[in-house]
């Protein structure tokens, strides 16, 4: 019997959702969100635990988790920056933001800083085109950015 990694809070929150869906498998996407909120990313052991909770094969969890970009199958830094580089944001200077991050943090897009503080990624359209350029910092949107604002934001992060 493998040791449980996820807290009771996970199980309580998931049990609340059970009556809202006609199948158990439909709980999978919500379960992965709740699990990841706890553990930051989804290591194989957590995916196995989710599989066990729902009652499906671990491969079924892996195939779903690896399909969606928001599920982290590798560890991410404390601050996960996802800078949109799709059409509208590129038109309003997103590429300069990416360049600035890479230079300032000394990493390339997709990487995490050695102190595990920052992960920077390019992202597809976030639905904030009217306030471009935009990015996600963990769960929050930051819009109407420019290099100065971004710099200030990064400096302010503990």
């Amino acid at each position, binding site marked *: 019997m493998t040791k449980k990694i996820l807290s009771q809070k996970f199980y309580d929150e998931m049990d609340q959702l059970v009556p809202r869906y006609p199948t158990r498998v439909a709980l999978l996407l919500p379960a992965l969100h709740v699990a990841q909120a706890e553990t930051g990313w989804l290591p194989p052991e957590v995916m196995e635990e989710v599989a066990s909770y729902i009652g499906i094969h671990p*491969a079924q969890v892996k*195939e779903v988790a690896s*399909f969606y970009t928001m599920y982290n199958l590798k560890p991410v830094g404390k601050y996960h920056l996802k800078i949109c580089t799709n059409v509208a944001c590129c038109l309003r200077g997103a590429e300069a933001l990416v360049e600035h991050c890479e230079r300032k943090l000394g990493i390339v897009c997709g990487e995490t800083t050695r102190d595990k503080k920052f992960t920077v990624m390019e992202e597809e359209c976030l639905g904030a085109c009217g306030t471009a350029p935009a990015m996600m910092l963990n769960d929050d949107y930051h819009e109407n950015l420019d290099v100065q604002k971004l710099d200030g934001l990064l400096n302010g992060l503990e």
Partner: protein
Amino acid sequence: MPKCLIDGREVEFAPGTNLIEVARKAGIEIPYFCYHPGLTIVAQCRMCAVEIEKMPKLQTACSTVATEGMVVKTRSDRAVQNQKSIMEFLLINHPLDCPICDKSGECDLQDFSFKYGDAYSRYTEERRTYLDLDMGPVIKKNMNRCIHCTRCIRFGTEVANIHEMVAVERGNNTEITTVDGRPLETDYAGNYADVCPTGSLTLKDFRFRKRVWYLKKTPTVCEGCSRGCNMEIHQEANTIYRCLPRENMEINKYWLCDEGRFNFHYVNDPERVLDPKAGGNVTNWEDAIQAAKTALEGRKLTVLVGSDLTQEEATLIQELLPKVFPGAGLFHFGTPAITSASEDAPADKILKRKSKTANLHGLEKLKIHGLKTPIATEAVLVIRGGRAVLPDMKSIKTVVGIGVFTNTQSGNFAAVLPGLTFAEKNGTIVNFEGREQKLKRAILPLGQSKPLSETLMMWMNRKKAEHTSAMETTGAEAR
């Protein structure tokens, strides 16, 4: 029955049939990769797209059900252009492995590329490659060859009832794999290689052993259990290289379990006794038979008949037994704990049965009963093929064996008279439904092994010509 027009040919069809099958009946081939009649339809490969009158876009034939009066063109300019483009798309990342790939010669990608593709590619970018994870002892995986038809995934979830083969990532990076290099769990893993249209999933057992165009195929029946799945034996120069399922919609559809698929190895096993033996030493047939007779003379005898033998063999034993061994008890054996046909039952929800021999139900039909109590006599004559599990005979003083044995199994036998495996003889077996099916000889008897009828005739000092079973044939037929 409704009719439609395919390439100008009028075809009758049963309502609900898809266009690939309707065309097939009219002798028209529509190429496809992801479609499989035994699996759900996904219409992913897009290779089977055809032109249908009144529909502006090309339609995939697999997912289109024929309707009355439908007019279909499978070789219109647009359909041909699509076939060429799909082949080009599939080959841009496919390695030119044909010279080293087992699938060569029976590869859908090869065949359809030759028939429907162009002879060149315009791709000059870098090719996508994957690292291969091991999948266990049955299947060899080469992900670079995969064309993402997803037949293997669907086989796993729909037939083998296990969600172990999955697609991870998405888009061009999609990889078909088990999780984290885990071996395949299913007992039906061999079918993954059957459904794969390329050399991406191949059998480790068959890897690099024989080019498929050398193999001669014999339709027969599996002896692995009492279901009697239909099977093909593939051999060359009297060596069996592999067994594949043969389609039978009423018994096994398109599938074969691994136990049945790999059962044949014992036929060519170097440990198999192929020469007559007396007292543990190889000798000639006359001496071996004499030694057998001597060993059993005057003793109380039990005759054990393997339920892996055919109806013809069992009938012969039944007829001759009172003449040769009056008073001897006759029992069948085969699967420990299954002593009668009524105890046979499904072993899983797919194909396998609890009886590990093919003809249990046939022998009981002949009113031969199973061995239920420990053997009480001091002598045993055991007659079997290669499947029936030998009961414990350590306490029996004298054992004579006719049929298929290894050296180890027959180490303390007074005499061994080598006989034929299922692959070396014709015969009738009866499955759990009472269905009669025919074993067909695929290879000539190995070594000095003889058909049971011949052995029994020699035992009774009769000439072969007087009593030859209709089902026994000479070697000429196997050639």
